[in-house]
């Protein structure tokens, strides 16, 4: 009898903020705390406006939020 192992794909997070929070548990940071807050805000707005839950905002986008 052969066993079939279905391996779950490796995922580090489907948004920049999820990846950032995972990265901070590992190696360090890639954006400031303030930029991370703003990226979360952008992700929330993107989900509300277009239903996209998988996206990747950069610090350039974050710094546009005032």
């Amino acid at each position, binding site marked *: 009898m052969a066993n079939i192992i279905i391996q779950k794909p*490796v995922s*580090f*997070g*489907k948004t*920049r903020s999820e*990846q950032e929070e995972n*990265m901070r548990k*590992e*190696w*360090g*940071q*890639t*954006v*400031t705390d303030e930029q991370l807050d703003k990226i979360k*805000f*952008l992700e929330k*707005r*993107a989900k509300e406006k277009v239903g*996209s839950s*998988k*996206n*990747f*905002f*950069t*610090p*350039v*986008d974050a710094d*546009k*939020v*005032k």
Partner: protein
Amino acid sequence: MSTFPDGVFQYGGEPVGGARYSSPWATAYFVDGTNGYDGFDGKGPTTAKKTIQAAVTAAGYQDVIYVRAKRPQTDASDPGVYTESVNVAYAKDNLSIIGVTPHVLDPYYGPKLLVPDVVSEWGFHVISPGFHLENFTVQMWDITTTPAGAVFLESESGFAAKAGSVGASIVNCMLWSGQLRIDGGYDCTTYGVTFNNMVKDNTLGYNFSCPSTGGINPQWGMKVQNCAFLGKHAAAPTNTYMYIQGSAWGWQIRDCYFDIVPASGQFIYINGDVDGFLANCYFNSANATYAAGAGSEIQLGAGVMKVVGCHDVTGEIGSGT
């Protein structure tokens, strides 16, 4: 609502624009120059690649590569460096390479790429569209031969096989004595980048080189924001900080600092029909005049380049074209 000349256009806190991509298939890759191994798959921090190029080779389009800062040298005089030339092939479109800093968000303390001491070599040589580089120092100051520069966003007419200057973004990086070269193209962002001449002169700093004959078309939508162009230590560098040759439209140069005027160059040299604006910039000179032609420290070229809210050490340098 516009807050110009701060320049941010927003409506109720919602910024213009959006995410770079929203691909559900994107994969994160990891590079650890100290503990990594190129034989690993690179898909987790504990199975990281050792070199950036190995991760780029393994990655597909729209993927993200995180690069860990290497451990410092034993005398702690300098962070460890990745010494390699990274080539990003055409099929790797919308690839992101992001440096991870251990404590503070400063590119000097993040990963450093030392351009190999080889003639005509580049640190990052990119021919794919949508390239994104973040939190990196690319250094050339302690090498003896003449590598070409730090980052080359290369394109060709028609963009069929080379499109590095389409939609690229270079963010929060330090280019230490190595130029950023952009060959025509469109919609490239240079944001929060320090062009540092302090030890060794750049050949140029920001080099948009697209001659009218044989140039890459179209050429528009370039943005340079929150950048610092630094001279040598208390002395003038040799070469021009921003060199723009071509006919390009929709150019934005804003919120930048220009250090001591170069000895054999200018703060900004524009040769061609370039339209756009130069806003909220500071020039460390007592005579930062601007004009369409040669003879001034800021040469704006033949196009309609608006000057808004810029200053030198004596005050506002005027607003006009």
